């Protein structure tokens, strides 16, 4: 399993999410990348990252079954590649 599942993550501070019928648009004001979150569940996961102790908990809160955690971890890695989400560091991490 991807180590990311046990880590605390968050949405990047320069990213805004715009709800759309299929999920959401994520826009990074810093690097100006536009990404599409194609499932409402993925949107819920991304929004829930910052308040969850780790990624796995965020997935559970969003109702993603354990059998799909690996697939979601891969999608999150993709989002991390353009800094849409990033590992959370600091006192609460």
């Amino acid at each position, binding site marked *: 399993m991807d180590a990311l599942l046990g880590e605390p993550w968050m949405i990047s501070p320069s990213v805004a999410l715009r709800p759309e*019928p299929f999920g959401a*648009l994520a826009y990074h*004001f810093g690097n*100006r990348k*536009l990404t599409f979150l194609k499932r409402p569940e993925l949107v819920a996961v991304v929004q829930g990252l910052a308040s969850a102790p780790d990624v796995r908990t965020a997935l559970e809160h969003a109702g993603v079954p354990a059998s799909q955690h690996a697939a979601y971890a891969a999608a999150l890695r993709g989002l991390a590649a353009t800094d849409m989400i990033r590992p959370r560091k600091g006192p609460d991490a």
Partner: protein
Amino acid sequence: MSTNLIEHPIGRPVRPQTGTLVQQFEYGLDAPICLTWELTYACNLECAHCLSSSGRRDPRELSTEQCKAVIDELQRMQVFYVNIGGGEPTIRPDFWELLEYAVDHQVGVKFSTNGVRITPERARFLAATDYVDVQISLDGATAEVNDYVRGPGSYDTALRALQNLKDAGFKEAKISVVCTRQNISQLDEFKALADRYGATLRLTRLRPSGRGADVWDELHPLPEQQRELYDWLMAHGEDVLTGDSFFHLAAFGESLPGLNLCGAGRVVCLIDPIGDVYACPFAIHDNFLAGNLLADGGFGRVWQTSPLFQDLRSPQTGGACTKCQFFDACRGGCMAAKFFTGLPLDGPDPECVQGYGEQALAGDRVIPAASQDHSKKTPTRNQPVMLQLLTRRPERPPVSACAESPLAGFDPTTL
């Protein structure tokens, strides 16, 4: 909230819950992704192929306060950036004020300019401002090719602007090129020019819109040049922007990077200087007018409720094109290109790379009359002179009607 799931406005197609992103886009988004906003019809140049037939300011153009209200609404709708153009947007006296207002309200700005106001001082201001992209228009890698369509001196103006941006430390300016018959052979030179200024090259398609309708026959790339362009894009696609302009070329085989979809009224639209909202920047015509943001209750309302946009978000019929094996790749091409060349919207693109466009162009067609024209009424010194020099001179001067000599016009060599 739950009623939204079952109530659909009458006539609005029901969006499928699954499907590819492109299929989702065909049903439209809650707000555009790519919004072009032309701030003024005034322009210092008179480019032969101007999409918006610009030249003179329109007295009804939005005031500074009205523009700020539009920006406020774009911020509420989370339109993350706008492409600002014109006319020449920087000659609006409040241009820099509006630019700052937009970026301060989470609306990033990418503006197109011919470079006339990009002084060293403005270049430094731009380099120090976040969320701003600058796109310098250049339609030839040499002054000869550029000035032929953009007018005398316009090449020097553009290069001076690029130099000022580079000297100010502005990163990644864009050089925006409309691909024409005259400049397709210069693609490598454009790339070298972009590299020299630390800029990114952006290539877009020539549309027969605005004054472009008058010169399209002479300027649009020839069929073999379409292939040359496609091959060049396949080889350099990673480093070059295209604004998803060339999806009609996808019928050569492999799709180019990008959406490969006509986004008109679905993910794209245009706000013109008087607040009229059109389906796309290449379709400034009454047939594609969705409404006016002053008269019809704001931009969001026009975007979400205009009957024209509802129509464009319904699955489109591809007509004869659906029988073509490449239909899934090119989706019938560009709506504006068809409309302004007088072709049916459910037929092939005039530049269809499978050759169906040429057949269609050879048939009966009526080129639609323009709905607006802000061209200057009298030519100025900036007007391009699209004349070819005569290669063959007449053998002797014409005979004046007043010539009294009985031998006037007599040429013994022709006896």
